[in-house]
Each structure stands twice: as structure tokens, then as C-alpha cells.
């Protein structure tokens, strides 16, 4: 089985991110960059799928600058990806990245394409469905459990929604976006790290993949970045529980006027 996995480099979840004084950019120098956490789950799902089906191969893909290749693809090699493609471009948005990925996968024809349910930087939730549509493949999104049938023709997935859970059967090939729950992402072994040094990603530019001109343009033009609205310090109540509770209810009713 040919398995593909898509990885993106994003600022770490705990990183403090500052907006430039003019609000036109983010100050990302010095901010720790990591493999998008949901993509780590996707990579884990890919590794488990390969373990379940003898003779399978994993192709990893990252769209981004050299740092994306250095972190995402070297990590993918270190945990066992067989091949990798680096689409070298730091300006594509998620739509452009999906177009570039579609061009790569049209050639390599994976049986299943894994990606994270969302990238935690732009939080658009666009990539998996967009990629599926471009490739003419079905998609299953935000899957927290996946079992690929022994014949490799379908996958049974579980997906959480607002107040419950769905079980879906998806015909392969398909694009499957992964949520937490498929298994803890593994860390590379020392041998894995050493082996990774012998592997090289194939580098492509968006233009080589036919993503140029209007296709490469961002869907939304960003005008301004701003920190979230700041809150003024709240009221702190330190009296004994019964009094504190009564005081709070009074404030919610008379001051906030919300109950």
C-alpha cells in the first residue's frame, strides 16, 4: 500500500506570539517552530497503517521554506518515512498548498493520504477536503480512530462531532484527516535519526507543479494582525464560600446583567 502524509511547520502551541508594532506582520523570529501536532497524529496513523500491511511505503510531503523541510521531513524520515517531497515555498496559503499537494499525489497515486484535522496556525480546516476534491477522492475528516480493511479497499473511521460520534466506512483511495486518538506519536530512535541523515527529500517549486499566477495567490489578503482584545483585571472575591457565592450571583445579575 502506498501511504502519503502531509506535514506543516507551525509555531509551538505554548509560544508567545507578538504582533509587529505596525500590525502588518507577526514577529516569529525566535519563536519555537514544531510539526503541527495534528500532523504528528497523521504521521503516527501512517506508520501504523504501514505496520499493518506488509510491503507498504510512506511518502511524506511538506510545503514551506527550508525550515519546514528541515523539521517536518527530517522528523518523518527519522520515524521511518521512505520518501519525501518538499514543496519549497513559504508564501502559499492552505489553498495553494492543497493545489501543490494534489499535483504531487496525481503523480505518486497514494492509496491513502493522511493529514492533520487542522493546522494550528491558520485554523482554516480547508486542506483535507480541498485536496480530496482536487484529486476526485472522498475524504473523512477529524478521524480519531482508523482501521484499514485487510484488502486495502476501505477504511473504517470514527469521527467526533458536537454531541456524539460517527462511524464511517470510506472507500480507498481517500484523504483522511486525523484528530487526537489514533495513538501517541512516537519519537525517533537514535538509529532512526542516523538513517534520516542518509535520506533526501525531493525538492519541487510550486511552478514546477503547475501552481503559479492566480493559483498561487492567497485567498484572503491580510490587512492587520492584532493581539486578542485585552481584558481589564476582574473582581476577585475572597470571602467564605457561601458569601462569595451570593456575591458572585449578585454581580452577574446587577453588574454584568447576564442572568
Amino acid at each position, binding site marked *: 500500500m502506498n501511504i502519503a502524509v502531509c506535514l506543516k511547520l507551525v509555531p509551538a502551541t505554548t509560544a508567545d506570539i507578538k504582533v509587529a508594532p505596525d500590525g502588518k506582520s507577526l514577529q516569529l523570529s525566535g519563536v519555537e517552530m514544531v510539526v503541527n501536532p495534528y500532523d504528528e497524529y497523521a504521521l503516527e496513523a501512517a506508520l501504523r497503517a504501514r505496520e499493518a500491511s506488509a510491503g507498504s511505503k510512506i511518502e511524506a510531503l511538506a510545503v514551506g521554506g527550508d525550515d519546514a523541510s528541515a523539521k517536518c521531513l527530517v522528523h518523518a524520515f527519522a520515524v521511518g518515512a521512505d520518501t519525501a517531497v518538499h514543496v519549497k515555498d513559504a508564501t502559499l496559503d492552505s489553498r495553494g498548498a492543497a493545489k501543490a499537494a494534489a499535483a504531487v499525489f496525481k503523480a505518486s497515486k497514494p492509496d491513502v493520504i493522511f493529514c492533520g484535522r487542522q493546522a494550528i496556525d491558520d485554523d482554516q480546516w480547508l486542506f483535507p*477536503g*480541498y485536496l480530496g476534491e482536487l484529486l476526485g477522492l472522498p475524504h473523512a475528516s477529524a478521524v480519531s480512530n482508523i482501521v484499514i480493511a485487510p484488502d486495502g479497499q476501505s477504511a473504517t473511521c470514527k469521527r467526533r462531532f458536537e454531541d456524539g460520534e460517527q462511524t464511517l466506512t470510506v472507500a480507498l483511495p481517500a484523504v483522511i484527516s486525523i484528530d487526537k*486518538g489514533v495513538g501517541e506519536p512516537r519519537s525517533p530512535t537514535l538509529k532512526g535519526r542516523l538513517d534520516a541523515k542518509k535520506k533526501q527529500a525531493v525538492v519541487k517549486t510550486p511552478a514546477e507543479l503547475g501552481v503559479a499566477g492566480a493559483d498561487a495567490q492567497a485567498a484572503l489578503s491580510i490587512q492587520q494582525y492584532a493581539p486578542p482584545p485585552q481584558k481589564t483585571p476582574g473582581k476577585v472575591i475572597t470571602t467564605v464560600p457561601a458569601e462569595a457565592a451570593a456575591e458572585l450571583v449578585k454581580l452577574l445579575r446587577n453588574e454584568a446583567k447576564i442572568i
Partner: protein
Amino acid sequence: MAGILVVAEHNGGVLKKNAQELMTVARSLAAGAPLEAVVLGPGASKAAAELGAWGASKIHVAEAGMEAYAPLRWVRAVAAAAQTLKPSTLLMSSGSLSRDITGRLSARLGARLASDCVALKPSGSGYQIVRPILAGRVRVTAEAAGDAPLIATLRPNAFSIEKPASPAAGAIETLNVEQTPEDLRVIVTEFSRAGGKRPDLSEAGIVVTGGRALGSADNFKIIYDLADAIGAAPGASRAAVDAGYAPHAMQVGQTGKTVNPVLYIACGISGAIQHLAGMRTSKYIVAINKDPNAPILKIADYAIIGDLFQVVPALTEEFKKMLKA
């Protein structure tokens, strides 16, 4: 400006609150241009009958063949509803449905996508959008201009609700969504609903959450009691879910759900950045915590410093007293 198409969600025929939010925003954007809605699934025609009063001139309804949710068919139905109107804007509420189908829809309709908007207004020939990125650490203002349509998903509870003074025509049009072999490529075989009587976390007006400080699943009873007393949805921090005190469906935060209620009551939650990502846009935040230095106090409007095992039941009693009065 061409028309606006709203994907109105409902619960078995009862229009959801987020659909009312969408219709209110859609009316302000339409400014006289055609405003249509599409309603899908069992109960759709019943929910559709409500939409004229919210300003829809036409409502596309697909109920036959839509008994069980199937993403590819839902995409086809929305695309079919968009075919005659060719809307400049398609609005959905940000949630499981939009996250499942908007990526595909935007490719099919050649549309731009702006997910989880907290503000949306006309600007020049297009729209100005405000949306949180980086898990709420930054807000970005962006413009969608040009001829390509815009698919915007709106964060629940971020927009006010207003009924128009006079209803629109509300003409019902049956949408025939043909079954195709494509539909069989994704089949939903099971659909289990958790909870039941309690409001849906992502849409709830009041949310009460408990953290690891609760200490056990049994102790979460005080959270449920408080939530039930005020009609709130109960939630939990990741630490509480990981410890097995509450199911994952209740998790609020970066790897769980994003909530945006009027009132958020955090009990025994310190406020890790990943938790704040899921609730920081709540209008009023109450924190109940032993630790006067807990990070959540920085964003709390009201805080009670004390033992949650005493404060939470006392609060439940006070709310009950107030609601009886």
C-alpha cells in the same frame, strides 16, 4: 452584490440558534440582494418553514435521500442550491458540519474560505473579515475581494440575533439530490449521540467546566449539578479528560471544542494556554480556584478564591434561590 446563501442547521426540524445568527448577518450583508437558505436532512421542511420569518426569500429543502449524513451528498446538495443563485457569499456556522464540508465546497465552487469568523462586513467590492488564528493568540483582519465567491463560517454566539420587522416570501423549493455511486464512497454506518437533554457545548449560552482539581469522575457531579441548575452545558479541561473524570466530548480547549458562551464558569482550572484557546472569547469568565496566581485569573471577569468543593455547591444553591425568586 449578488445573493447570499445560508446553510441553516437544525435539530430534527427545529432551527438551531446559530442558524438565526447566520440569518441576521445574512440580512445585513444582503442589503436587498436575494437571500436564500438551504436546509438538509430529516426534518428539513419543518425547519425551512421558519426561515421566511428570518428573511429568506427562498429555501432549498432536501429531505428525501438525506436520511443519513453523507459528506459527499451534503456537498452536492449545497452546491446544487448555489447553482441558480450563484451567491457571492455562502454562510455556515463554524462546527463539525462546516469543518467536514467547506474545504471540499470551496474547491467545487471556486470559492475563498474564511473559517470561524468573529466579524464580517462589506468592504469595497468584497468583505472584511476578522478571525482568530494561532488558537486565539492573534486576530487577523483580512479582505476577500474579487469575483470568486466567499464561504464564511461564523463562530457561534459571536453575532447577535434579530428578527426582521416583516417576513420574506419564504418560498420552499424542493432540492432533488440524486444518489450517485460517489455517495457510496463514504458511508456513515453509526451515529451515536451523547448527552441528550443538556445544551450543546459549542453553542451553549452558559458553560460550566471542571478541571483536574475535581479529583474523580464522581466528584464531577457538582459540575453537572451547577450546570443543570442554570441550563448550562458541562465541560472539562484536557487534564480532567486525560485523567478519565469526563468524556472527551466534554473537552474544551485546543484539542477539544471551542466555546463562545455569554458566561463561562471555570472550576478548578488553572488556565493553560491550550485551554484558553478554546474559551477566551467568552463574554464573561468566572474562575473558581484555590490558587490566587492561576493564569485563568488574568482573563477572568470575576474570580472566587476558595475551595471549589465548597464554593461550587454554594453557587448552585444561590443560583437556585435567585431563579426561584
